[in-house]
């Protein structure tokens, strides 16, 4: 090893430290040999939040933490864990915050239920409005005299 290479390595390292590198996300060296496991890793990563980023999954993020988490997920997959086991493990470590799809529980039932509540309320309002409208609409049929009058008016036209 000569000194020249060392200096160049140092310079490069300094460059990397100074410049937050763009467009990294999943890197080639992270990819697993087994394509099935890798596909599972990608799918899982897309559902996990990079906690130091704004609304990015670890699959998209360039942050170091995201890389660590991606490697962690792959490590567990290699060890034979199921997707649920990995999620449970991460939630235990980092809390629900890491799940981009929040679990259904007491604190989140309103979140998950909101679309259905709106549909249900809207549907009820529409039905109720129809009922009311129909009760207005039903009126006595025309009497003979009225019909004659109407025909006369229409005939004039």
């Amino acid at each position, binding site marked *: 090893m000569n000194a020249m290479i060392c200096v160049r*390595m140092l310079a490069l390292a300094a460059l990397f430290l100074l410049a937050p590198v763009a467009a990294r996300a999943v890197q080639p060296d992270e990819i697993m040999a087994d394509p099935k496991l890798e596909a599972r890793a990608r799918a899982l990563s897309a559902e996990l939040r990079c906690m130091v980023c704004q609304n990015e999954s670890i699959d998209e993020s360039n942050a170091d933490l995201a890389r660590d988490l991606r490697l962690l997920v792959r490590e567990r997959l290699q060890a034979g864990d199921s997707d649920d086991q990995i999620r449970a493990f991460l939630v235990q470590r980092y809390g629900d915050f890491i799940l981009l799809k929040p679990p259904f529980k007491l604190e989140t039932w309103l979140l998950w239920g909101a679309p259905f509540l709106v549909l249900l309320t809207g549907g009820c309002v529409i039905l109720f409005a129809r009922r009311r409208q129909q009760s207005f609409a039903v009126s006595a049929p025309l009497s003979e005299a009225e019909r004659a009058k109407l025909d006369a008016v229409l005939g004039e036209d």
Partner: protein
Amino acid sequence: MIVETGHYALVLALALALVNSVVPLWGSIARDGRLMAVAPPAALMGFALVAYAYLALTIAHVVSDFSLINVVENSHSAKPLIYKITGVWGNHEGSMLLWVLVLSLFGAAVALFSRSMPDDLRANVLAVQSWIGAAFLLFILLTSNPFARLAEPPAEGNDLNPLLQDPGLAIHPPLLYLGYVGLSITYSFAAAALIAGRIDAVFARLVRPWILIAWISLTLGIAMGSYWAYYTLGWGGFWFWDPVENASLMPWLAATALLHCTVVMEKREALKIWTIFLAILAFSLSLVGTFLVRSGVLTSVHAFASDPARGVFILLILVIFIGGSFALFALRASGLKQGGLFAPISREGTLVLNNLLLTACCATVFTGTLYPLALEALTGEKISVGAPFFNLTFVPLFLPLFILMPVGQLLPWKRGDLTGVLQRLWAAFAAGLVFMAVLAAWRGGPAVSVILSGLALYVIVGSFADLWRRLTGSGVSVSGVSQRARGLPRHAFGTAFAHAGIGVTLLGLAATGWGTEKIISMKPGDRVTAGPYELTLEGVVPRQGPNYSELVGRTAVRGAKGNTVAMIEPASRFYPARGMSRAEAGIATLGLGQVYMSIADPAPNGSVNARIFWKPLVVLIWIGALIMAFGGCLSLSDRSFRVGIARRLRKAQAPSPQPAE
């Protein structure tokens, strides 16, 4: 000096807005025509003053006047001229000024183009518009003054966030604001109508062009933003369910619903209460969006403001305007008489269903965006709501709309025959099913993509079924069709194109399932396939930009025969002023698909990490939005919207207003 005059113009604009928010209203209550006549010239003057202030700030940015804090924080003398101009709205203060500029632009437009409106309605609309203007001018002057000076100006500025130094940013925010803030006119119309207590078909007809303008701008603005994110963020994604994106999607959903229910109100005098409610809701959601983005309550890629004083101020504006209008609504709504009756299976029926689904979609986005904030504020517990949530809730609510669209277009008003309509749609059903079968046999791939593609083709074909029927009513002949085409109202074409446009977008979205992605480490000379193409990295070369340095991965894209079809230059850029870097994707549009490549900085051994996508039909996602906007423009050019017609309609109120269908 010019900076001070700009600042002063802003103060004058506030004073004028305060006058204009009281005098015309007083005039309309006292039935004094002279007081009401104050509103239009005051609105025009207000626009001129804000435009002057905006121009002053732009000049300060262009000449790099580093005695202004705003310029120091967001500009750099070496920044290209275009980004000096667009950088004016690439920061909190400047973007709020743009907000107010667009607001006063709409006020001026009402003053100019609504001569045919009843005087009191126009006076009230402009007064309400001035309330909003006054509130936001006060906000700018008190908390976000773009004209603040520095005692000791530095020699150089901090530059603009590199992500924002892009042509996409030049178009995206102004378009989005035209949409966002354009909805303020709808709000002002609704509030004015509630104050005057007169809500009828004339109101619906008068307000529709404004909703259309806002809707077209929002559609284009969202599409533009999505394309910008697609090529600057370097992940190849185009929609992230980011709170800031959601903030623009909510008004779009509400405006879409509003656009459809004003049709019912105009033609049938039905759904009045609901129309007014939606008009208020749409702008309220714009305000909520402004609050989310501008208060710094969520900090994301787009949000560049964080100062609690501002948040509280906008929250106050939010509460006053939303609360006030809904209180007025509650007072007046019970007095509204419901109009035309209709059977469940009718044009009105499908439009009600459309509104129900769009509202539910909107509510889903709303809760999904705000729930984590509320939960954290109330319990301190942090949760995340991201794409997987919206895919499970929003998508199933939105998809039925695609099935409904062609059916609704074909159903007649009042009462319709569903079997007859379904029979008329046979060609659309057939097209969708055949397409699905062909795709399944030929491409295979994910079932979701196959099914959605079929649905998309059904929508595209079905959107034109009504037009086809009306054009070829008595046999197909070139002269007959062209004669009928001239006779048909433009909005019939507009509807067809707008609906087909969203079908085209759906096709583009469906096709993402057939895309490929490769993440590899490449050395110059390495080859890799992307869909039907082969990419060769020819070399990694450094280059110097005006205010950045970049490493460019020159890559040749070759077709099946080995011929070079495109050269792409994905780059990794470094902006020294901020010490930030960003990716610049290399994109080749080949037919309707794209080869997309982004690279990271090279490793010591000279190889680069590259992300390479083949995205078939991806361009359709944005072309669909363009077609939608084109449809909107066709509708907008319909003669029934021209002011003269509105005047005739108003004069001819007595013999029942039955507009030509």
